[in-house]
């Protein structure tokens, strides 16, 4: 391969790399110069004599290692016959074996809860002993993800790792989730960690397609394409410290995913299946006392306000299930309006009115009144039981020649919302060929094909979530299900003015998505000798996604149909070269050094074509157009070139020092500012080793300290002023200046992180404590900050001030009970992060970050304040603590003020795991305390009268919906200016429109404690399965998102956000579909 390095890199290294990578003959001659190599094989067993598959076998002081196969067997070529092998396995005490000429070993490992000597995969795929690390990492095995059959890997991380925060959006098929580690460093940027799959950084952006900003489809988050069945392990590198070698995008932490390989396994086949059932987790409390209309009057004519209040979708109409009294229908009676309108009533029977589904008299053409009755479960019954089936078949083989694994996965999901589904087929291949003793070649790749029909999202009439809060309470959705359209194809809606039939939305208005994605890498490694190797790797994450928007003829606002198709092209190529040295300089001093370079090229294209009127109904094609189809096209490209180096020194396996340095050149920054360097230093000291502490008391003690910097660039095309083209007017071009002010002088962001940690194990590792204190200072953040448009621009791109994040993470582990057959393990994690805005741009005191959908809440950064403050209009409070009302009983509305914060105060998780023989029961509870959310469900549910908050008795003991003269009406719980209680009752039907104190009024504390997950798993005894000719049988039953144990809000799941999980959706809840409660089972057979 031709290799040249970025300009500016010392050319000495250039020529060196060049020569060494090309001169194969020279390389081959190296082997003859090295010491005599030795082939060693053996078996690794636990203390019961059972084989340990997947144990690590490492030649001490080198990167040379292997893993045991399914029978616990391994084979390794070591550098000399006196080499020392380190054998480690998760949950066991590692052993060092001096070969002294032995070529066949039987190694028995002792169990150990401390798991301290495990080897972890760190940045750039470099394998390190965990105890040597000077920063916090947390590992999750593939089983942690798979046991619950969660299809979105991000959701599987919720509650499992200290400081890892997951926001799910809702229970829609394919819905996005957002993950952040240690809070938000960037005011408006991505803030999500970098996902790296087998060394390839992959796209995890959260994308919603939208039509004109209102009709959304949440296309999910990119990492959701990773197939959990193929994950061998995940490592969470938490700070910038851990991620210095990944450059800019590692600033928010890195999630390293290693997929399974056939390494050391021999030939085996496994078949796995899981089935998960999903149901709505929480629905609002709907009232069932009043139906559609206003002023307690209603009759249906056309749904366009042709009847009485049939153009309104609110539930302020007549009482439901009401038995008519004689006085009601006498002149002046409260139902006399119905008599006047020509709808006679019978005393003693239920009120009857013409309704949208009343039968039409064939002679008169008039609707025959039908009983006005409630439909308490109309929404509940709308949702189906969602089913997700995941089937995986994998083949593995391994030997001297190398290894391979092929896995095919089918994931078939049908949603809770009718007619939503997603099918994903994944083919994953991993192969490694040992071409010579020194030269190996490895290729890994996943091809993922997904397709399905997604749900509309956001606050739009094509998202069922919106209609659930706007549906009038008497509406029979079951009728709508069976009566979607008329014989002429027109729609049957309960209110054609405002809503489509919900089943029309689901079955006629579709959001089909198809996506093909390939994530793959190939690498060549040449091992010059026992301490020096050179590897190159090229990786690609490529995807092509198509999202269609299908809107049928006779739909609301789409009377002649609509069709749009968007094609997304995303591609990122990373190419690395890495020269690594691992050498024991003396018996006490070990050295690991890496020198490398990377080039990253990222491209994105989006083409959208749409037609707004179709010629022929039900044919969705761009050529079936009454008007000229419109096409928009957008593309962007950026490139970062990097050179980096790292050195690790270890002294007597108790003192470690790591130094790294990286220089990036980014295409997105101005010439002159586009090169930036950032270093890191970490150190750790295993003092229990130094002081030889009593293992029965302090089994292990390590202190660690690290300081790291990470530089960051920005998006492309932010430096020049641009003009946006509008449709030409006749023959005249029409352009407008972009409302974003260009930033010609941008410099890179720089984040400096410090981390201090303590790992302690006590009482023979029965109790463990892992404490981390960290601080990060993010300076010169590049952000798009809203300006007052009066300045001439709506936003400006600036380098803004400084944001400090400080926090603490605590992981406590304990094993209260441990016997031969039974053990009880507890893992608790706690994380608290505070983000402080230290400075903004120049002397700017306050910046608006984004305004949440609905324009009520603005998230603001203020100097001295915290990240995520929510501002809006609220109440004016009396000194006695109650909101002040005016003389008319209406609460006063304050100026814009600080109301809350989107960020939680702290996060916690508690996992209890019980093992009895081959059974394991694991119960995970997680908590998020603090943080606020603006609830559109409650706001609209109040205005529409759909929620129970709009019915019941007032302080007079009279029905709030009764007339004021009868003692009814709504009394706001406030005080007059003089502090005396409010006494003015308001007619609810009119008062509900008053938008007083809107933002604060509908702001809720989003704290919760959730029963996140219960898993019961069972592995059939090996003695039994071997008789069946099987290698393993694993069974589990599980439940996820099971119960809210504690909450401070009402009517919505505090975890659910807005249209998707993106930043600008945080802090608001917009009547989306409910989240899902999942239960299921899983079985895996290995042959």
């Amino acid at each position, binding site marked *: *391969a*031709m290799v*040249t*390095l*970025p*300009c500016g890199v010392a050319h000495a290294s250039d020529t060196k790399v060049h020569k060494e990578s090309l001169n194969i003959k020279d390389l081959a001659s190296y082997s003859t110069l090295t010491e005599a190599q030795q082939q060693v094989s053996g078996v690794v067993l636990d203390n019961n004599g059972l084989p340990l598959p997947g144990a690590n076998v490492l030649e001490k002081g080198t990167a040379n290692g292997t893993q045991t196969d399914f029978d616990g067997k391994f084979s390794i070529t070591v550098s000399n016959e006196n080499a020392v092998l380190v054998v480690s396995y998760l949950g066991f005490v590692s052993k060092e074996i001096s070969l002294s000429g032995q070529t066949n070993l039987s190694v028995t490992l002792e169990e150990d809860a401390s798991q301290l000597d495990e080897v972890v995969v760190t940045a750039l795929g470099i394998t390190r002993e965990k105890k040597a690390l000077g920063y916090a990492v947390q590992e999750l095995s593939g089983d942690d993800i798979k046991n619950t059959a969660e299809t979105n890997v991000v959701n599987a991380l919720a509650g499992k790792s200290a400081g890892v925060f997951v926001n799910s959006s809702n229970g829609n098929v394919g819905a996005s989730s957002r993950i952040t580690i240690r809070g938000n460093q960037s005011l408006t940027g991505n803030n999500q960690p970098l996902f790296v799959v087998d060394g390839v950084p992959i796209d995890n952006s959260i994308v919603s397609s939208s039509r004109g900003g209102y009709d959304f489809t949440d296309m999910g988050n990119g990492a959701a394409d990773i197939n959990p069945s193929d994950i061998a392990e995940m490592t969470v590198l938490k700070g910038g410290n851990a991620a210095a070698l990944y450059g800019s995008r590692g600033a928010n932490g890195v999630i390293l995913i290693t997929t399974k390989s056939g390494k050391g396994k021999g030939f085996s086949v496994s078949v796995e299946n899981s089935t998960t059932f999903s149901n709505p987790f929480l629905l609002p409390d709907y009232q069932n006392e009043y139906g559609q209309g206003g002023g307690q009057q209603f009759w249906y004519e*056309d749904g366009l*306000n042709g*009847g*009485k209040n049939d*153009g*309104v979708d609110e539930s302020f109409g007549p009482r439901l299930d009401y038995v008519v009294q004689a006085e009601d229908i006498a002149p002046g009676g409260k139902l006399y309006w119905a008599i006047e309108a020509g709808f006679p009533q019978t005393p003693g029977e239920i009120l009857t009115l013409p309704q949208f589904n009343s039968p039409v008299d064939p002679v008169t053409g008039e609707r025959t009144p039908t009983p006005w009755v409630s439909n308490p479960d109309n929404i509940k019954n709308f949702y189906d039981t969602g089913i997700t089936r995941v089937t995986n078949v994998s083949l593995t083989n391994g030997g001297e020649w190398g290894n391979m694994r092929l896995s095919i996965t089918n994931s078939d999901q049908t949603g809770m919302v009718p007619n939503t589904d997603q099918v994903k087929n994944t083919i994953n291949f991993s192969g490694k060929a040992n071409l010579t003793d020194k030269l190996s070649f490895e290729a890994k790749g996943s091809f993922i094909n997904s397709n399905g029909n997604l749900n509309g999202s956001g606050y739009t009439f094509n998202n069922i979530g919106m209609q659930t809060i706007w549906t009038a309470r008497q509406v029979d959705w079951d009728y709508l299900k069976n009566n979607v359209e008329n014989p002429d194809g027109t729609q049957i809606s309960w209110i054609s*003015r405002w809503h489509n039939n919900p089943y029309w939305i689901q079955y006629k208005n579709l959001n089909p998505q198809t996506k093909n994605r390939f994530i793959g890498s190939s690498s060549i490694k040449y091992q010059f000798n026992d301490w020096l190797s050179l590897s190159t790797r090229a990786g690609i994450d490529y995807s092509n996604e198509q999202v269609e928007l299908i809107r049928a003829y006779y739909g609301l606002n789409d009377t002649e149909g609509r069709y749009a198709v968007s094609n997304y092209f995303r591609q990122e190529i990373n*190419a690395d070269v890495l020269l690594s040295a691992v050498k024991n300089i003396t018996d006490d001093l070990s050295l690991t050094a890496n020198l490398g370079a990377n*080039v990253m090229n990222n491209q994105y294209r989006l083409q959208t074509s749409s037609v707004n009127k179709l010629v022929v109904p039900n044919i969705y094609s761009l050529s079936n157009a009454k*008007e000229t189809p419109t096409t928009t*096209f957008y593309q962007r490209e950026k*490139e970062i*070139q990097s050179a980096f180096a790292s050195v690790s020194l270890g002294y007597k396996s108790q003192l470690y020092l790591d130094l790294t340095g990286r220089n990036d050149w*980014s*295409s*997105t920054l101005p*010439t002159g500012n586009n090169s930036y360097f950032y270093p890191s230093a970490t150190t750790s000291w295993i003092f229990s080793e130094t002081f030889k502490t009593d293992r029965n008391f302090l089994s292990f003690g390590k202190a660690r300290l690290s300081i790291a910097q990470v530089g960051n660039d920005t998006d492309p*095309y932010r430096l*020049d002023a*641009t*003009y946006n*083209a*509008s449709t030409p*007017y*006749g*023959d*005249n*071009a*029409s*352009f*407008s*200046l*972009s409302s974003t002010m*260009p930033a010609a002088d941008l410099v890179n962001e720089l984040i400096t992180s410090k981390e201090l940690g303590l790992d302690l194990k006590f009482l023979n590792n029965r109790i463990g404590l892992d404490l981390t204190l960290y601080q990060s200072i993010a300076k010169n953040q590049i952000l798009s900050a809203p*300006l*007052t*448009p*009066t*300045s*001439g*621009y*709506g936003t*400006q791109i600036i380098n803004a001030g400084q944001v400090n994040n400080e926090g603490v993470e605590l992981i406590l582990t304990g094993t209260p009970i441990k016997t031969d057959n039974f053990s009880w393990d507890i893992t608790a994690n706690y994380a608290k992060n505070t983000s402080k805005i230290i400075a903004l741009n120049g002397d700017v005191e*306050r910046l*608006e970050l984004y305004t949440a959908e609905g*324009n*009520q809440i*603005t998230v603001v950064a203020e100097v001295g304040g915290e990240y995520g403050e929510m*501002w809006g209009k609220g109440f004016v409070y009396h000194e006695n603590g109650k909101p002040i009302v005016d*003389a*008319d009983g209406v609460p006063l509305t304050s100026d814009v003020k600080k109301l809350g914060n989107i960020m939680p105060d702290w996060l916690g998780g508690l996992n209890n795991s019980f093992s009895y023989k081959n059974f394991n029961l694991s119960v995970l509870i997680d908590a998020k305390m603090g943080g606020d959310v603006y609830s559109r469900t409650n706001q609209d549910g109040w205005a529409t009268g759909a929620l129970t908050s709009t019915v019941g008795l007032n302080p007079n003991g009279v029905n709030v919906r009764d007339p004021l003269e009868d003692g009814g009406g709504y009394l706001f719980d406030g005080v007059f200016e003089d502090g005396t209680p409010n006494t003015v009752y308001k007619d609810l039907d009119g008062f509900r*429109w008053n*938008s007083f104190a*809107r933002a604060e009024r509908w702001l809720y504390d989003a704290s919760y404690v959730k029963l996140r997950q219960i898993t019961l798993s069972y592995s059939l005894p090996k003695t039994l399965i071997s008789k069946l000719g099987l290698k393993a049988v694993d069974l589990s039953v599980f439940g996820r998102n099971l119960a809210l144990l504690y909450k401070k809000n009402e009517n919505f799941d505090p975890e659910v956000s807005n249209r998707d999980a993106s930043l600008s959706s945080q802090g608001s809840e917009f009547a989306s579909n409910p989240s899902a409660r999942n239960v299921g089972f899983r079985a895996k057979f290995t042959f």
Partner: protein
Amino acid sequence: LLFSCTEDFEEMNTSPNDLTSVPYNTLITNAEISILQAYNPILNNEATWTRYNVRDVYVDVDRYGITGSNTNFNAYSGHLKNLQQAIDLAVAAEDNNAIAVAQIMKAYAFQNLTDWYGDIPYFEALKADDKDNPIIYPAYDSQESIYADIIVQLKAANAMIDTSESMGTADVVFDGDMTMWKKFANSLLLRVYMRMSLVDPTTAQNGIEEIMADPSTYPIIDSNESAAFKYWLPEDATYRSPYYMDPTTAAQQQNVTSAYMVDFLKTRNDLDRLAVYAEPAASSGEYVGLPLGTLGQSTQDLSIMGVAEFRSADSPTRIMRYSEVLFILAEAALNGWNVGMTAQEAYEAAITASFEEYGLDASTYLSEPLVDFNGGVDQRELIGEQKWCALYPDAAQGWAEVRRTGYPVYVATTEPVENLFPGKGTIKRKPYPYTEAISNPEGFNAAISAQPGIIDEKFGAGVWWDVN
């Protein structure tokens, strides 16, 4: 692996999606369209407050429920900035006609904005990217000072125009006809002067008399043919009349003709303009209006806006009418100012022009008891009423004139809105955009304190010229 060098970076980072420079005329084209769509809508808040067209459901805005969440200042970063950019480029190119057109449109837009909000950023606005003195927190200026500068700008534009040259088809209002631009600019000056006439009568009188005394320097709109009407492209879905409404949308009317308007026309026996302004109710065939803020009526029992003149694909935007010019002259004459005609002459000519705009004859109408200039009704009230009626459905101007003159006097008790905000009165201005308190707090707070008497940012004290 081929590592490229950073020399390519500048090219790579140049947007392939958008141009980085364009001819300034294309900015004027864009701004003209944007401005006409922004300030002359027929279905908006002002149309209801003016009692032109009102809503029959979701009457929150009709009921003065508007808040800063419903307003924005995007006009500044939109057409105003585009015009400023066009002016800067045209100055460099010494293209006086383009400068003049941009200045006139800018003045027109700014007058509309300040009439809505009162004090707004003006002198320091649009300067975020100023090379010498960038301003990202523009101060709010008094409406009085903005009006003074609008006058300067319009006079300068009028003087700058070379009528022997056309601006070309990039001018999509008058197709490059610079004489039309002079007439529009000077008529706009008349509008500006009259709007400020109650607070600064001297400037108003001098200004109007100066224009009327020198028609060769200050040509004005002097016929329906020379009125500032913008005709659209009926065949083009993007650029057909912005008032066009397809039949389905029309069937779901959210706006119906106000009861006050229907009654006004009926009581003056003005059935000809009634038939233009409104459609008969679908159910009865009668003209039935709806009192502002009324909820729970059936649309098919109500009149909706007239289709032929106002809602067809080729309905023009009436930027400034001949009748409005004549009503201004009538009021000026009534003030005793020398405009070359009497108040009655101008008043009757104005009504006649309004009728002729729709091909109607006003001769019998002029002698209707409630119309006759000498019929006993206060002449100032007559001019106010008839001007309001003739301006239909130009709601920005209608609402401004109603606030300024106090005419017509609505029969408030029939409308539910009057009870919604006891003690606060009718809406006097639009609330400032909610984000201003966050993105320009000093300017915003100073503006609030500089305009005492405002209640809830919309009631109480009117704008500077609103002393009624």
